């Protein structure tokens, strides 16, 4: 019994949550494409519905394939429970809707993915949830934005579009001072590069569509409860989170914080959120994402290695104005990244091309290996030119306010041979600087 140690990252990536199929012996996790599960008898049925036994009832609430994925991501993140949902957006919505309702308030980093920004700015607002956006690096702004009705602080581990490094330890400490949880979107970093719970975050979500899946084959989201936040203490001290600490009429008066000391959030997110909002992940997608996670460590290592070489190449190129990657000393998050992201700062970044929108368009259209599309985190390298795609109607001044120039390009570096990527980019850069006839 000497020197006990937990299994390493790659072992957990391959094994957590999974056992050989008890019915067939299949070693790969089977895809349980079934809507519902047969009860042994009426008492078994009643006890499953009443949470007296663990098991599956209906695939909107839980499914054996999804459960493997949920338990695996919880293990990789160092959390207590995972919930697989239809997309990263659904994961973010489930995280918020489990603890916030009409009259609630969120404090969020302003450096967010556009979809997250939309959800907070417009859609949640329509349901009575207000958001104050702050500069992620301005701790005083975070503090000043907290209100009595604030329910959560939220940011991305690496913010959009400039890869602002979220100071998780500092923001978590501030949140906890106010008996609030910190929720983090860790899509760009994955647990291989950063485990937010280790630094003080309480809730994590991923767009599993990206690096976790890794092959651009499935859309999915994962929400993870770290089990770190003491909801009962927060309720006692601040009166917040009655959702978890008072009897819930929608589940026979269940008090989630009594049922589970460490995971009342996960209990309610599943028992209410999956049940009622229903944004469940297909078991087929869960299988695809599990396949990706099995090689997450290997892939992230190469994603980062390739990215470092591409960043080095771009930073030295005459046609490039600037590169935003935290490992460069010029990046404002450089020092913080050394502490939080010693294994690398991911494989998605933006750079500014010298020139106008037309230059950006010329570059994108001349690339042969990079695919021009609106996604990141694929095994294949991807590119997008915001000024001619996602932001094509936005005037230059407003682009600048969002941290985007007419020549900004976002790259997602894949697993190809890096010399081929550099050659492709070199050609694109050359074409970008040609004068249009």
């Amino acid at each position, binding site marked *: 019994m000497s020197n006990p140690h937990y299994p390493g990252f790659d072992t957990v990536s391959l094994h957590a949550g999974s056992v050989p199929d008890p019915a067939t012996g299949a070693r790969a996790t089977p895809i349980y494409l079934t809507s519902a599960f047969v009860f042994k008898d009426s008492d078994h049925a009643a006890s499953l519905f009443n949470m007296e036994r663990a098991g599956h009832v209906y695939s909107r609430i839980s499914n054996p394939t999804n459960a493997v994925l949920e*338990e695996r991501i919880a293990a990789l993140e160092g959390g*207590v*429970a995972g919930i697989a949902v239809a997309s990263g957006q659904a994961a973010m919505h489930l995280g918020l809707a489990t603890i916030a309702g009409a009259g609630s308030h969120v404090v969020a980093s302003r450096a967010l993915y556009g979809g997250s920004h939309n959800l907070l700015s417009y859609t949640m607002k329509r349901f009575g949830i207000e958001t104050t956006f702050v500069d992620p690096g301005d701790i005083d702004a975070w503090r000043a934005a907290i209100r009595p009705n604030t329910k959560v602080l939220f940011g991305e581990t690496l913010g959009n579009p400039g890869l602002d490094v979220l100071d998780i330890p500092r923001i978590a400490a501030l949140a906890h001072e106010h008996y609030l949880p910190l929720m983090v979107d860790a899509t760009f970093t994955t647990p291989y590069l950063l485990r937010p719970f280790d630094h003080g975050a309480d809730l994590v979500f991923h767009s599993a569509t990206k690096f976790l899946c890794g092959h651009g084959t499935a859309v999915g989201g994962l929400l993870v409860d770290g089990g770190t936040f003491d909801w009962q203490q927060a309720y006692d001290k601040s009166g917040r989170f009655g959702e978890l600490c008072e009897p819930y009429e929608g589940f026979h008066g269940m008090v989630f914080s009594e049922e589970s000391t460490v995971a009342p959030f996960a209990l309610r997110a599943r028992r209410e959120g999956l049940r009622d909002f229903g944004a469940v992940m297909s078991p087929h997608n869960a299988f695809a994402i599990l396949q990706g996670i099995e090689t997450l460590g290997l892939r992230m290592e190469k994603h980062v290695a390739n990215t470092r070489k591409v960043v080095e190449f771009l930073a030295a190129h005459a046609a490039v104005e600037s590169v935003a990657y935290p490992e460069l000393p010029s990046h404002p998050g450089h020092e913080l990244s050394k502490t939080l992201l010693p294994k690398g700062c991911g494989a998605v970044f933006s750079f500014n091309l010298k020139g106008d929108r037309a230059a950006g368009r010329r570059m994108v259209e001349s690339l042969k290996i990079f695919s021009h599309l609106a996604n990141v985190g694929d095994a294949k390298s991807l590119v997008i030119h915001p000024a001619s795609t996602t932001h094509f109607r936005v005037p230059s001044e407003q682009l600048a306010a969002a941290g985007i120039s007419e020549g900004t390009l976002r790259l997602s570096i894949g697993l190809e041979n890096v010399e081929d990527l550099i050659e492709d980019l070199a050609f694109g850069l050359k074409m970008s600087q040609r004068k249009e006839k």
Partner: protein
Amino acid sequence: MLLKTHFRDTEHDTYCYTGGKAFDPALPTAVFIHGGQNDHSVWILQTRYFAHHGFGVLAVDLPGHGRSQGPALTTIEDLSDWLSCVLDAAGVSKAVLIGHSMGSLIALESAGRPQQSSRIAGIALVGSAYPMKVADALLDAANNAQQSAIDMVNIWSHSTMSPKPSAPGPGFYVQGASQRLMQRIASQSTARPTVFYTDFAACNAYANGERAAQGVACPTLFLLGQRDLMTPAKAAAGLIGAIKQAKVVQVEACGHALMAEQPDAVLEHLFKFAGTATVAALAAGD
């Protein structure tokens, strides 16, 4: 529910989870006692089932653990005295005691005492051993390096990183939840010695097990994890031999965290045992 517990000239609130239903002392009572550095929530599935199938349930938080007030008690004998006060406060005249690990020693000590045995219909000792010796290194870590002690106990308590079905339900990472619970208990007090140390020292020092076992007159169930490294099944042999009505079940594919790793098997054995013990006590006219 919170019970005002009078224990040796002190009064403290004792928290008892009642299984999602109001406690009714008129029903047969099942008392669930958690192990060291844990709280009531380790029993969540089993207690909900009992409460919805004819039992009044009291899943206690021991003093200084979870939501119960008062300092952690330092001996198994004190904990047994305290439990008797809890039963008084709840108006319980007869109960089956179900204890895990340290909790199993409290159940054993209670059932072995002539003054308490009359109100105990049966005892179920889950993940039990006697003597329950704790290595010096672990004891020291429990007081001086709690995270290290938590890691040791967490690793040794689980036989797999993928128990099925996960408890309390699909999607839960059992070993992660176990770690967080121990961390939460650690975070609730800055007192020295720590709750963790106090619990383990109480187990380590308990020396009345043999005498208590000889005094046990009620039905007794030993529920032991086949792959338990904390309290290996063979370490209960002495107690098993000393108790007249002992029944032994070894749960397959299971370590020390039996309730989380094999929730259905644990429930089935406990429920059957508690029902039989209660009926036997009623038939005996107790």
